[in-house]
């Protein structure tokens, strides 16, 4: 079986995978990083979003072998101990999550947005979230969370 190596949340990891192994499967099944979720099979819900070399990507729609050598950040890699990343903190502060299932992907996507567009308007935030589906919140408080985090991330 092919071997894949990458950096995940700052730590070098490697493992044997089948060619068909998706990045999300490698993260969840082999590394037991189960914070990254799978909510659909058509690459639309965004529960699986992680950062690949700093850019948000859907880990359900890439092979583990495709990211050989890359730096991956997952939801588990954001907080510093018990101190949350400003985006995580803003979601907590604004009730930007309910069941929590879409939340990891939502947070990872939102961080990429604020990095690229620190002063995103409400409309721009809503448009950016096209690839992240939430069934619980109606998005109202997610948008509010991202707006607050953008301010706290120096946007």
């Amino acid at each position, binding site marked *: 079986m092919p071997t894949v190596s990458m950096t995940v949340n700052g730590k070098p990891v490697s493992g044997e995978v*089948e060619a*068909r192994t998706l990045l999300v499967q490698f993260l*969840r099944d082999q590394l037991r*990083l*189960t*914070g*990254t*979720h*799978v*909510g*659909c*099979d*058509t690459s*639309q*819900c965004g*529960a699986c979003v992680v950062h690949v070399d700093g850019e948000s990507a859907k880990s359900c729609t890439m092979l583990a072998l495709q990211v050989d050598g890359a730096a991956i950040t*997952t*939801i*588990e890699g*954001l*907080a510093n101990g*018990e101190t*949350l990343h400003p985006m*995580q903190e803003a*979601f*907590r*502060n604004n*009730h930007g*999550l*309910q*069941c*929590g*299932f*879409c*939340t*990891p992907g939502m*947070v990872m996507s939102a961080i990429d947005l604020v990095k690229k567009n620190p002063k995103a308007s*409400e*409309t721009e*935030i*809503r*448009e950016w*979230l*096209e690839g*992240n*589906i*939430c*069934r*619980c*919140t*109606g*998005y*109202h*408080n*997610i*948008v509010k969370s991202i707006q607050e985090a953008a301010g706290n991330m120096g946007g």
Partner: protein
Amino acid sequence: MPDGVTGTGIGAAVKRVEDQRFLTGRGNYTDDINRPGQTYAYVLRSPHAHATIKSIDTAAASEASGVVAVFTGADMEVGGLPCGWLIHNEDGSPMHEPPHPPLAVGKVRHVGDQVAVVIAESLAEAKNAAELIKVDYGVLPAVIDMKTAEAGGTLVHDDIGTNKCYDWGIGDKDAVDAALAASAHVTEIDIVNNRLIPNAMEPRAAVADFNGANSEYTLYTTSQNPHVIRLLMGAFVLSLPEHKLRVIAPDVGGGFGSKIFLYAEETIITWASARIGRPIKWTADRSEAFITDAHGRDHVTHAKLGIDDNGKFTALKVETYANMGAYLSTFASSVPTYLYATLLAGVYTTPVIYANVKAIFTNTVPVDAYRGAGRPEAAYLLERIVDRAARETGVDQLEIRRHNMIQPDAFPYQTPVALAYDSGNYQATLDSALSLGDVSGYPARKAGSATKGLKRGIGYSTYIEACGIAPSAVAGALGARAGLYESAEVRVHPTGSVTVFTGSHSHGQGHETTFAQIVSDQLGIAMENIEINHGDTGNVQFGMGTYGSRSLAVGGSALVKATGKIIAKASKIAAHIMEASADDIEFKDGNFTVAGTDKSMAFGEIALAAYVPHNFPHDELEPGLDETAFYDPANFTFPGGTHICEVEVDPATGVVKVDNFTAVDDIGRVINPMIVEGQVHGGVAQGIGQALLEGCSYDSDGQLLTGSYMDYTMPRADNLPNFKVATQSTLCTHNVLGVKGVGEVGAIGSPPAVINAIVDALSDFGVKDISMPATSAKVWQAIQDARG
């Protein structure tokens, strides 16, 4: 809601306890769980909506790489999945309950029906092997449309000789017919309440683990009510005693009703785990979820509303066809009857009401409760027909509602369809919504839209719903096969910290926070000293779980009852230690004081004493501080409110944009306003989704055309506006917290407001109706048709 409530007590916007784990990727959802030696199940499903199974050849699959076992319906000699509510026909005979085998026997009845299960060392191997199973189907015509099904011909279940599950009625038909005949005006309407697919973001999953050493089964499953699953699966399907079956619903990623029911897959792998002696995991793909999760709504209705010369409603007559799908799901039968027709009075004084409901089997996925369950269908029907009546009689939309509303001093109010409303003030919520939604500024906004070439409309919905599902005695008399109480155990530890075991279940609602707030408030101890434990039949006493917005009204009441027992017991202990009469002990702010003295003991001191009972008179005072309560509600609770929606319609494309949505809901006392607002936001989003975006579609062969997010339109962030949300509280009169329930109000109140707004916007074109979902294609077509 109470302004300026600080701290962690009732009314405070406490940040959620559960968020730390969810935000850091440390939630524990079913698919995150792995057991040593675990295998993987893949279910082979019917590609046909209706077919006989002539033969199944599993030989090649059984020999395939990594395969542990292959089972079909012939192997699984167990009971069928049961239905929890017996409905009687108008003639008094019971409804038809055709068998629902977990793995199909002899016939498949919808696309997605379970045909075989393959268990293998890996999921990929299970899927590969499933491709080797040869099923010889005798394809039969499918029956999809309810009225075609009613006529007979093709039968979903041959043995019952009909596709009609039941033909049920409520109310006085003769009185309604007479009143309609005598009415000055009768408004008629045809309503389709569109079939929805629930789509909790976490697909269903289960891990079954049989321990041969003690013959115990453990099932981890995505459930809203693990005890109900244990009871139904154990007692009715697999014949397992409850002490040998532990069901755990860990973190659950949304439910919205779809995770109430006992499903085939969790049943199959629990059974199979004992056959193979190893743990089995099954996780649905989203595509599987679309064809196996119970769908929601799907009513077709004709209704007539009589109005007298004074503009008062005289009578309402409703005839509804309700789709059951191919099998009766767990609570399917109760949804279009006791959760629907009993709500047809709404907030109005209509003196006589009659409803007939025909439940129909079709070759589609079973239909059951989905957020609101019956009540959205009732609210939609009523608020659409009232809107139309206003247009037909030339009465203002607000005036027709106010004129017919139950007055604030008329409570308790007995409706003609069984329910007795305990409290409410519909005029106040309406007034509040008019103000919050800045309705006085609407004409200016309409003019502003017109300058952009857009048609603006405004729509109202003054709705009511019923939560808490009912005293067990009443539900039982109406055919419920379960009690509808809830339980709580409050276990005080020797150092004064508390673990609560609740029969309610949280799958996003935040019970770990709100229930801790209640205990903190009742016992005067800090929230960080309270742990809320739920979802595990291995350590929680029997409970009924979470659905129907019942957690706070029923589960919260049980919790208060249990804390009351704790206080009573602790008072006895305090009396003993401080050498006073228990009647003289006062409990306030976490301290037990002997009235009129300065003798006082803190809650923690009493807790310690309870477990170090060195001098207790043991014949009068038991050691320990641990109390359980079961609470059976005295009545439903009746949340209600006003939703106002403004839309902008682009007549060139038919695109509808929701612009300015206001919801003022009377949910009784608010425990945590932050969480309450979140619940309303989510419910409204689902309601707007139903009104504008979501619609399940089958072709005439029974193939699901909306089988993924490529074709089923989920509301996304850019489909929705920010919402204006407020609460207006009249207290529930029959539970100690005064709470009514908030989980479903958003999804119940909003769809008619949206559709009424679109009809208003298009009234210039002569459009009188638009069906849900009001997609741009449909709106554009309606404009073309009206223009002729």
